[in-house]
């Protein structure tokens, strides 16, 4: 690879403009080439390893690494639930309210289902609700926050009004009310409720991000290049706040998982759903405390704690992406 800098001169020379051809020594000498490298080489070398840089940054953070491994574990459990679970979670052929033993590691429910199998299948619900509920909230937040921040003026005033409304209306009672009155029950409606009530904080966050980004020169430059508003918002601004968006997506997912469990525990879920929240609900109603079935109550609680903390751990690594000061050596 030849170097650009020497080539830079050529067109100018052809112009007969400036570059004075001088001879500095009497001895003819070979042209001096720049060393065969410039900063492009390490970049290519990095690309060859097929590990994108963002992943390396996250991975090099110890907390995030633990979180990622844990998340992978949960995902695998969710995918292979039917292989891993010893029984069907809805099978009621076992004796009710058994204590943990070698047949039923975590005992059975009041209705005679295997708690351990329910725990494994429950992973699916939590992950799906987290991914979709958090995703819905993030998408709404993105669109509203970014348009408000970029357009400014009256558009911003109106959208900000809705954002503030979303912030001051207490989320949990709203969710309970909406979920309780909805004609159908089940995870889908819970995802929708979570998405529709949980975006306000993220929207505000994104709006303020856009406010700082939209005054950058490259945004003005895109305007001069003739790009339209939507294109500027989604192609010029959004990629620059990707790590922050991921950050708030993960936070929203944590919120969604917690909210789902909470709603179900309060009894507004579909009773036939297999999920950790529903397990807690049944354990509570089935008198797990009275019969001393600690495992029925503790296991889903611990699972919920584990999945939310693993997502939070990942967030430490994502944080390091947007703030190099936090990167670990």
């Amino acid at each position: 690879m030849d170097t650009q800098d020497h080539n830079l001169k050529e067109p100018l020379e052809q112009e007969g403009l400036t570059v004075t051809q001088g001879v500095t020594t009497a001895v003819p000498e070979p042209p001096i080439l720049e060393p065969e490298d410039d900063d492009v080489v390490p970049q290519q070398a990095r690309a060859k390893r097929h590990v994108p840089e963002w992943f390396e940054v996250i991975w090099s953070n110890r907390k995030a690494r633990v979180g990622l491994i844990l998340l992978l574990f949960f995902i695998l459990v969710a995918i292979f639930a039917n292989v891993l679970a010893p029984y069907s979670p809805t099978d009621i052929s076992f004796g009710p309210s058994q204590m943990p033993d070698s047949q039923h590691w975590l005992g059975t429910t009041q209705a005679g289902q295997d708690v351990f199998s329910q725990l494994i299948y429950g992973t699916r619900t939590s992950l799906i609700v987290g991914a979709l509920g958090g995703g819905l909230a993030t998408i709404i937040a993105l669109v509203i926050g970014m348009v408000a921040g970029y357009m400014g003026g009256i558009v911003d005033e109106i959208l900000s009004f809705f954002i503030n409304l979303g912030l001051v209306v207490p989320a949990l009672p709203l969710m309970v009310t909406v979920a309780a009155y909805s004609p159908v029950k089940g995870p889908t409606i819970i995802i929708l409720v979570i998405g529709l009530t949980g975006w306000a904080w993220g929207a505000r966050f994104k709006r303020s991000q856009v406010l700082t980004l939209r005054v950058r020169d490259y945004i003005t430059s895109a305007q001069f290049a003739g790009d339209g508003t939507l294109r500027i918002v989604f192609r010029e601004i959004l990629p620059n706040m990707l790590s922050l968006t991921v950050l708030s997506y993960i936070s929203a997912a944590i919120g969604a998982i917690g909210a789902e469990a909470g709603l179900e525990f309060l009894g507004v879920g579909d009773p036939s759903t297999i999920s950790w929240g529903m397990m807690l609900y049944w354990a509570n109603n089935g008198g797990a405390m009275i019969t001393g079935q600690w495992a029925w109550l503790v296991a889903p609680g611990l699972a919920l704690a584990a999945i939310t903390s693993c997502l939070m751990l990942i967030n430490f690594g994502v944080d390091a992406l947007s703030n190099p000061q936090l990167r670990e050596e």
Partner: protein
Amino acid sequence: MALLEVENLDVTYATKQRPPLFAVRNVNFELNAGEFVGLVGESGSGKSTLGNAILKLLLPPGRITAGSVRFEGKELTTLPDEELRQMRWRDFSTVFQSSMNSLNPVTRIEAQFQDVMAEKSDLSNSQIHDRIGELLQMVKIDPSFMRYYPHELSGGMKQRVALALALALKPKLVILDEPTTGLDVLVQKEIMHNLRTLQREQGFAVLLISHDLGTVLEVSDRVLVMYAGEMVEDAPTHGMLKHPIHPYTHGLLGSYADPAAEEVEISYIPGRPPDLTRVPKACPYAPRCPEAIPLCRQAKPQLLPMWDGKAACHVAQMQWNDEQHNHTRHSEEGPKLLDAAFSEATSHKAMKLEGEEVLRVENVSKTYQRRAGFKTTSMNAVNDVSFNLRSGKVTGLVGQSGSGKTTIARMITGTEYPTSGAIWFGETRVDKLKGRGIHNYRKHVQYVFQDPFSALNPVHTIQYLLMRPLMNYGKLNAAQARQKVRELLETVGLTPAEQFETKMAHQLSGGQRQRVVVARALAPDPDIIIADEPISMLDVSIRAEILQLLDKLVRERKIAMLYITHDLLSARLLSDEILVLNQGHVVEQGAAKTVIRQPTNEYTQLLLEAIPRLERPDHVRASYVPTAEPTKVQVDASPVSEE
């Protein structure tokens, strides 16, 4: 014993993700008590890293990997942090470019001094109060300002407060890292002058780190020049001005000239510094050096004494050896060094084009209303300004920040509307355009930004960035646009184009980025280009290169250019006509040469005086014809190994 001794210092930035960067390598120098020394280098030369390493202020992943730093004989590199903390402020202190922003915003100026002084000195409160007054007076601030909060002061004043703070405990050494960069030229000049006077009176030592050789030469006793992490020259100011030893120093000096001279010419250094993730085994300057000989690519030159200073250069050293043996040769003869230069005589002006009018600004004024409580104050940003832009001509708009020059640019591009007056683009009233009209108008008026680091979106490739305007305005499809991108890159001198297309902005140097910014402005084939301080953020050694590029475009494409700057030297070189703007008023207007050579306004004269006036060293060392075998020369001929 010198006050500060730096010996064989190496600083490396090593992270897991990237190859280590050898930012400072084998640096040796001394600083005597009471000496004012400048440390000059361009971006990436390691000068700030060196400054931080001396005071152990390096941020990870930067680390001192070898060598020693001694302050009054005491080794600092191994000193425990607690002891070092004791020495800060009292023995040495620092002022950074950002110091003015690090004043605590919620406490008064006085309290900030008290914090520093109460802890480290045993003065009583009233003594401290008196001393603060004294310190502020020293930096030419009225003592009554000590009751103010930092945000109530201007940037220049805050920076002076930071300087006074650094001097509060009478340290023996003050390290200043770009202390005036980013401030207005006149303020810069004043602070530097002030600093020099103080230093003479009080006798503390100064290490002034700067990218601007001109400023440094004006105030320092001695100058150290760094290139690519190595010290390449260490010489007294006087000698350096008359007779720079190292070719790089010579190249840097070429960027300065007296704008009021009859003929003005500045030069640049083609090429860019090497990548420091690999330790250069030979002279790091060799790829750009006009004097290089084969030996330069084989062995690394050592920093050795010659003439009145020290330099790391094979050729200079051979000449010095020659001169030692042969006293008849004099150093002040010989051929000119090879320079890539830009002068008025080679610019578009020499063609004496008669441009036709493209844009007319008629009696334009802009007033901003500001509401504070019940009071409404109005500020006249621009006052009754008229001029026109002609195709193939450059109009220079010169002034400091706050002079209204950017407001004028914004009105011309339609981003802001004038309060009164009119702007005509042919038959179109620019100041009446809205929405779609502005979009269409921008095809004709493009902008070159000041900061090439923020004008290119870091997430896109160069190709994407250049395709956008082509597809938006030129109505090309993607394939045609891609073809045109190559042409554009070639026009701005980025060849081979294929190599640049796929890169992201952060993979390019500052000068290359600015070329991309120019290419983007060219893409819609505009009639007018507004260049807003296009060279002020670039390294001094490549500024002339970008000026040359802009000049070429004006000439070839018959573009009308508005060149906005605070720098009269570049304005003189590039512009046909100059308007000097002071607080919204045009104080001087006329042909470039006339305005600068015979300024009638006081303000123009002030601006002129602020430019470092260095004589161009055109008497250069005798050319060296290697008569002796290079091996005779005292150099470390074995290639320096990595690490």
